[in-house]
Structures are given as structure tokens and as C-alpha cells.
């Protein structure tokens, strides 16, 4: 999977622990697109609001619930603006909720984005998606 084609949301790619959710997401516009710190933070905040999790903006990884952590990772992946968005083993990240419904609900908020969302899950979890 070429790195520039897919944005991964994976249990193996954690957030930077000493940064808040907003700062983790803002790193991408800040370092890749050379926006100012203020503008990068504004973009990150807007994305968290679109995800419906604006309140986690100032939380750091250890203070987040599993779904909040997942949303922060998802925000980081979305802001990469890559053609594919791959969610890998969602059950390992969203172990405290019925995650297929949660994923559908969040994906619905981004229907107009060009990224192709793909979920890679264990085969034995297939019934959960029915």
C-alpha cells in the first residue's frame, strides 16, 4: 500500500502522546502545507467539530476514551487528504462501543469527501456489520 495513497487509522499508529487531539491533527497542515500555527489549529478544530467531537480538542491521548482516541486518529488521517482512508482492525480501537454503527455514523458526515473509506476487519467480525 503506497504511503501517499492511503491514510491509515490503525492501532499500530498511535497519536503523539504529549500533544492534544487538536495539535496531533494540526501537525499535518503545519508541516506539510506550511500553514501558520493558528491556521493549522483552526483547521484541526473545524475537523473535530465536523466529526462531532469538538470537546476532545484539548485532551491528550492518555485522557481520551477509546472512541475519542479513534476520532482523533481519524481526524489526523482525514486531514492528510489521501485518496484512500483505511481503517484497520477497528475492533482493537473501538472495543467499548458497537463500532460498525459508529463508523457508519461518522462516515455519513464525510460523504462529500473524495477519500474512499475502507475497513479492514477480521472475518469473524463480519456478522457485526449486518
Amino acid at each position, binding site marked *: 500500500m503506497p*504511503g501517499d495513497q492511503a491514510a491509515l487509522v490503525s492501532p*499500530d499508529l498511535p*497519536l*503523539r*502522546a504529549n500533544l492534544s487531539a487538536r495539535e496531533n491533527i494540526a501537525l*499535518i497542515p503545519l*508541516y*506539510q502545507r506550511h500553514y*501558520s500555527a493558528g491556521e493549522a489549529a483552526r483547521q484541526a478544530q473545524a475537523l473535530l467539530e465536523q466529526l462531532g467531537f469538538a470537546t476532545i480538542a484539548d485532551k491528550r491521548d492518555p485522557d481520551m476514551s477509546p472512541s475519542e482516541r479513534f476520532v482523533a486518529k481519524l481526524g489526523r488521517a482525514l486531514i*492528510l487528504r489521501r485518496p484512500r482512508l483505511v481503517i484497520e482492525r477497528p475492533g482493537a480501537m473501538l472495543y467499548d462501543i458497537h463500532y460498525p454503527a459508529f463508523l457508519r455514523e461518522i462516515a455519513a458526515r464525510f460523504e462529500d469527501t473524495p477519500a474512499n473509506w475502507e475497513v479492514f476487519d477480521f472475518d469473524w467480525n463480519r456478522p457485526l456489520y449486518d
Partner: protein
Amino acid sequence: MEFLLNFVERTGAKAMGWWSTSYGVLAFLSEVLSTLARPATWNRATLDTIIKQIYFTAVQILHVYLIYVLAISWVIITITLSTARDVGLFDAATEMIIRVLLLELLPFLTALLIALRSGSAINTEVALMKVNNELDALSHCRVEPMQFEFLPRIIGGIASVIGLTVLGSVLTLILAYLSIYGLSTSGFAAFSNTISSVFSVGVLAGVAVKCVFFGLALTTLPMAAGLETPKKLFMVPVSVLRGMMRVFLALVLIEVVSLALEYI
């Protein structure tokens, strides 16, 4: 025969260990230099992170550092003045204070303080980042860890050693003047002459280079040790232990080499 084989095996393993460590540090340093030389590195985000690092490394400990310098300088100045008076070398006391404290002791103690506080923190943080895959996550997002995490800490470390040493030196000079001449301004000309005679351009450049090497050692060695950490949480303390031992040995080596170059 078995003893000889074991000895050769152990020595070989140690030599290989040293080689691999030295190679790792040199490879890391060369990556630092190439990142430094890339114009793309020097954007607003990097500069902001460098400023943050200088704040964490130098500004946050400023009050502690100044008290520490004040206490050490006062003790050394008092001992030097008292000994110089006893042996009839009071006229040379100012020069002795400048040479011992400003040129040698203060830069070394500053580096040691920053190494203990920030070097150990850097080592632990990099090791944890390695173990937790945070570096891989940054690379996946095309945020280069060298530019975002490592380089600002190195530049911050070097700037902090230089900045704190300069501040400490000014404080020590004031303390030395007050200890020798009191509040009178009568000794100002003689004191200034001694300072200017000791601080030639060559000596100043030597102290600056030494501070740069101190800053480089107390940041790059802990980072290199952190990056060597296997992806096992229980190896983090071992990584910090190794990194800090290397920092201590490097600081002593730099000090010894600088003394040898200056006086031998």
C-alpha cells in the same frame, strides 16, 4: 582452550557492540547535519518548536540555575580568594577565578545540569516514542521526526548551554568583583583589564566550541540511545541508563580534551 574461546567471543561481542553504537551515533549525527543543511527544514513550524525547546530547557530552570551558579561561584570565589591571600598571590586571584570558574567549571556544570534534567527526559521520551510506534505514526503522516522532534531539541540544547553559561558567567563576574573590591568602583579598571587579557578571541571561540559540543552531546547521545531501544517497554530504563552513561563520558571527554588543548 574453552576459556580462550569465551574470552575472544566476549571481546568480539563488546567490540561489535561499541562499533554498532558508534556507527548509530555517527549515522544519526550525519542525518542531523543533512537536515540542518536542507532549506526546507527552516520553516516557521521548526522555528516555533525550537523556541519551545529553548523555553523548556533553559527558561524553565532559569531561577534554579541562577541560584545554583550563585552558590557554587560564591564558594569557589571565597576559597580562591582566601587561598590566594594565604600564599601571597592575591593579585592573581581575579585571573584564577576567571580561568577556573568561567572557562572550565561553569560550562561543564551547566552542561551537567541540562544533561541531568533535559538529557534524561529526551532519552526517555524518544525511547517511549520508539516503543509505542509514535515515530512510525509521524513518518506515516509525512511529518519527519528529525525535523519535528529531534532537530529542535538539539538546537535548543546547544542554545541553552551557551545562553545559560553566558548568564552564569556574567553573574559570577559580578560576584567576583563584589567579593574582591566590594561596592567601590575603584577596582573596575584593573578588573576589566584582567578580563580582557584572559578573554582573547581564541579563548572565547574555544569556550563557544566547547559549549556547542556539550549541547550536541547531551542531546544527540540520549536521542541515539532512545532510537536504539528495542520495542519492549521494559527496555526503556536500560536505554536511559545507557544513554546517560554515554552523555557523562562524552561531557568528561570534551572537558578533558579542551583542558589538554588549552594547557598542555
